[in-house]
């Protein structure tokens, strides 16, 4: 991580979406919407199921290309990583999963073991090093996915509903891991439908509904003085239709 901290740019990465839309089979699933992500902040993308949260994350991360509009990083694109709702771990040990991430990132072989073990320790997984990744519990798997993302030294970390399938203890561990990233200066973009999680973690909130951008505002404002009727209803826990 030291290298990353040393080389961290003075200005935070900045992503601009200009009238970005995504359609498939003639159906508009997202947008068109325009927004900017910048600053060393934690942005939570919220909204009911099917609102387009995952789609927006994938477009921002570059897994999908928009079918209309422009999506652009200022300067060169930053290093990124993404943690998925259901982590995809390789069929090998926890340690080997991390060493694999280092290998594909061109870390010399002799450094891999040491750095992988350090990452396991940082996320409290050192006792599971030799265990096959696929038999770990859901929470352990998600922490391993975070440790893997850690080794990729991202400047921006995307998390797609990373805690939706976890029990409270595991949620706490994952949230603390996210804090670890943030404290190291990693920009966080995370989707969630959990209002309480958003109150705990968010600096900014983006509310999506039916593929449209409803509201984007600092978290304290969003929760205390929502502008739109949908946001008020969402915060009040009502079902949006």
């Amino acid at each position, binding site marked *: 991580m030291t290298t990353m901290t040393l080389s961290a740019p003075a200005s935070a990465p900045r992503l601009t979406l200009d009238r970005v839309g995504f359609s498939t089979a003639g159906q508009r699933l997202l947008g068109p919407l325009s927004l900017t992500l910048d600053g060393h902040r934690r942005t939570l993308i919220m909204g009911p199921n099917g609102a387009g949260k995952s789609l927006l994350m994938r477009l921002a991360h570059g*897994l999908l290309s928009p079918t209309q509009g422009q999506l652009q*990083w200022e300067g060169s*694109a930053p*290093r*990124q990583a993404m943690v998925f709702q259901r982590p995809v771990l390789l069929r090998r040990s926890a340690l080997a999963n991390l060493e694999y991430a280092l290998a594909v*990132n*061109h870390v010399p072989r002799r450094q891999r073991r040491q750095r992988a073990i350090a990452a396991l320790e940082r996320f409290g997984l050192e006792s599971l090093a030799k265990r096959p990744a696929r038999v770990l519990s859901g929470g352990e798997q998600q922490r391993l996915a975070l440790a893997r993302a850690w080794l990729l030294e991202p400047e921006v970390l995307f998390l797609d509903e990373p805690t939706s399938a976890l029990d409270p203890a595991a949620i706490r561990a994952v949230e603390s891991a996210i804090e670890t990233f943030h404290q190291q200066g990693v920009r966080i973009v995370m989707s969630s439908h959990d209002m309480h999680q958003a109150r705990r973690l968010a600096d900014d909130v983006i509310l999506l509904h039916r593929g449209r951008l409803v509201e984007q505002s600092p978290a304290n404002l969003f929760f205390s003085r929502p502008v739109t009727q949908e946001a008020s209803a969402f915060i009040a826990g009502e079902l949006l239709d």
Partner: protein
Amino acid sequence: MSHRHTPSSRRLSSMQVRRAATSAAAACALMLGASSALAQDAAPFITLASTTSTQNSGLFDAIIPTFTDSTGIDVHVVAVGTGQAFEIARRGDADSLLVHDTAGEEAFVADGYASQRDDVMYNDFVLIGPSDDPAGIRDADSAATAFGLIAESGAPFTSRGDDSGTNRAELRLWDAAGVEPGSDWYRELGSGMGATLNTAAGMDAYVMSDRATWVAFDNRQNLELLFEGDDVLFNQYGSLKLSRERHPELKHDLADQWHDWLLSEQGQQAIGDFEVKGQQLFFPNADAH
């Protein structure tokens, strides 16, 4: 994705090219290793194209060890129908040829594929059929009569139909009997002698077989030997020296030793000594002319 990973992808692919090259090399090494692991022992050998009748009766198992003992040469027998044996020799895939179709063998020499042909031994063809003999060939006075009776009765007859020496001999006999085989009682199998006998046993059909295969054959069921002894059923085997001009790469010197040994006193003796179930199956006649 390219906007983020282009430089690293490029490095990756050059590394991958090296890795692919390595695995291709490994595959080649594997293939080479495999072929050397499967390679023949260094002992000299010839490949002999011959017929199923000689192989199935066990003749080669009996005489080849004697030949190998006295010359140090092993004989690899590829046993197929006579037609296919000619084709193998024509293509240069065998060093020597031992078959039983004298007319075909003489043509083979005339066409320049072989330089010499010699009688080695003979046995005879026999007519096999169901023990109740619906066509009544048991007491026929000649092979041609027997064939005529089978055609008349409409009882099923199974033919090799594979252009083998036996098949060619059978077709000559139908011709002699004045019958054009091809009605629904005539079943062309396109199979070897053993397979044809198995089929005949299964359908209670008449069939012409060489005596050696019949005597050694175990799955007779209801079949019996019904007719034998006519001179036209004589079955001559010949050995051929293949042409040095057409196929100079063959092991002619070793093959000549085999050919000469078959005709020698020792070879003829070995053939005559071979018995199945107490019965001599092949009669050496190298001196016949």
